[in-house]
């Protein structure tokens, strides 16, 4: 069974802390994505990666960076957490090559920045 695993379900951090959100997929997918979900705003794309060590900015990359050293793992980094980064963070993956592939989602990390 396909699986996208996010390391934490709930996370509480303080303003200014460096925060790492980890995502691992076991499906050998090429593409991985980070979204944040906020009420009334839907899911907004932060960053995505289509290959190891390759990344592209999404629609809201400010304040975030990513790392993809291995194919199965895609990390989202908040360099200096701020209260406006309190949100639900969702990781997703998809197979390579085709624009019509479905996304496989993790269960999400609810991050609170105090």
């Amino acid at each position, binding site marked *: 069974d396909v699986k996208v695993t996010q390391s934490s379900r709930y996370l509480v951090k303080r303003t200014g802390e460096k925060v790492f959100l980890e995502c691992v997929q076991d499906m050998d997918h090429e*593409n991985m*994505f980070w*979204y944040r979900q906020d009420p*009334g*705003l*839907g*899911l*907004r*794309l932060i960053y*995505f990666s*289509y290959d190891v060590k390759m990344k*592209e900015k*999404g*629609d809201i990359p400010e304040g975030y960076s990513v790392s993809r050293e291995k194919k199965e793992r895609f990390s989202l980094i908040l360099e200096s957490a701020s209260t406006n980064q309190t949100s639900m963070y*969702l990781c*997703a993956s*998809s197979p390579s090559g085709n*624009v*019509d*592939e*479905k*996304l496989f*989602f*993790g*269960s*999400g990390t609810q991050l609170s920045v105090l």
Partner: protein
Amino acid sequence: AQSVTQLDSHVSVSEGTPVLLRCNYSSSYSPSLFWYVQHPNKGLQLLLKYTSAATLVKGINGFEAEFKKSETSFHLTKPSAHMSDAAEYFCVVSDGNTSGTYKYIFGTGTRLKVLA
């Protein structure tokens, strides 16, 4: 650049009546379009997808959607609502970038309420 507009943030229907959730899209290329559903405290699940084969697409749980290029719409319908359909629904467009990669852009969501 691609974008998705879900025209209603909330829709309420009575059980047994039809459901219509509206979605309009903008795309520079030939897009793929999807509907995902998110039940309370659950993960996102694919309902259906359009990939330029048939314009009327059937999905799970009795849902279907029709791709209308002239109207740039991809509305989701169901003939008869069930209480278990209460959830948030997202319209998604997948489109190519100049770099040759694909982005999945989500709408802001429509929360469906089903009244007994």
